[in-house]
């Protein structure tokens, strides 16, 4: 109550927070991240458009990393098709069916972890919902964000979806076995566009079909895994200003 003049009006109180709206998600993500670090598992948030080849990359990754222990959480609006495919590829995979949500958040991942054998895994791949917009702003607790961009999507996708590519620690340029059929697409032009949205553009061209580039991807993963404990680039992506 206003007590300066006794008018009886309610008092208006300004509360300054200057807090990220996703602070709750960030907190759960930090919790996930501390679990992953403690267990020595490399958690990768794999994002990309629907059909970019995320699941195919993971199937090929299972072959490339054998005999490492891989766990995957596959997010989709509906069906567990991806989880079924990944399981067939030898990955301990479970589905996160989001219903109408266009992205995974840290809480969905945390909940899915209860049923997944991630504590004894070497790598945890979180295959996000196919979408180049929404997943980019949700920290899940990953050590690194990897974005799959297929050559068939067109070379200007980084310019159209800058937030997603800016969040990427690594871009996998997928389906390069199709390049002979795509005379208008060049890896160099994709790379030039990545440089306009990523201050430190890291990308690897690969084909899950013929195995080209898979060795470099495997080395990248093994390098990141041996660096667990160091502050990841992804962990620094969400500062409050």
């Amino acid at each position, binding site marked *: 109550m206003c007590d300066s003049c006794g008018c009886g009006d309610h008092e*208006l109180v300004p509360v300054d927070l200057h807090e990220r709206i996703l602070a709750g998600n960030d907190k759960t993500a930090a919790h996930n991240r501390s679990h992953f670090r403690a267990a020595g598992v490399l958690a990768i948030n794999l994002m990309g458009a629907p059909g970019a080849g995320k699941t195919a990359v993971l199937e090929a990754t299972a072959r490339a990393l054998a005999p490492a222990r891989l766990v995957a959480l596959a997010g989709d609006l509906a069906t567990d098709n991806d989880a079924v495919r990944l399981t067939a590829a030898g990955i301990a995979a479970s589905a996160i069916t989001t219903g109408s949500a*266009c992205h995974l958040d840290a809480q969905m991942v945390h909940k899915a972890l209860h049923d997944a054998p991630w504590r004894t895994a070497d790598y945890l791949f979180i295959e996000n919902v196919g979408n180049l917009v929404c997943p980019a702003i949700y920290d899940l607790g990953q050590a690194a964000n990897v974005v799959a961009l297929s050559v068939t999507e067109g070379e200007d996708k980084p310019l159209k979806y800058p937030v*997603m590519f800016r969040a990427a620690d690594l871009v996998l340029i997928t389906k390069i076995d199709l390049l002979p059929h795509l005379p208008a697409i060049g890896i160099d032009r994709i790379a030039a566009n990545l440089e306009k949205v990523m201050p430190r553009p890291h990308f690897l061209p690969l084909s899950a079909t013929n195995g080209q580039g898979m060795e470099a991807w495997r080395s990248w993963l093994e390098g990141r895994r041996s660096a667990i404990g160091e502050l990841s680039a992804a962990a620094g992506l969400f500062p409050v200003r």
Partner: protein
Amino acid sequence: MHEYSLIQALVERVEAEVAARSASAVHRLSVRIGEDAGVDIELFKTAFHTFRERTVCENADLEVVVVPIEWACQECGRRIEPGRALRCPECLAPARLIGGDEIILDRIEMEVA
């Protein structure tokens, strides 16, 4: 369409603050959103007006301050124009985003009995 989930998080945060301070109503929220934060501002406002019904924010105004995107050299601080490679033309160091990706709740104006 993650704007709806952002609004849900926003309203939950405001509800917690209202409960903690035993406020009776919320008059105004001030948020800051970067123009390259991946948020559609109009959709964000529409989501707020849809979602605030029957919450503590029912009669609250929403002020959105849009922050322009700005890159600078992480070494010398020189501003770097968007649309070009994100490297300093002088010292070749990578650019650093200094504004434009914020999604921040700055202030809640609430009525305390």
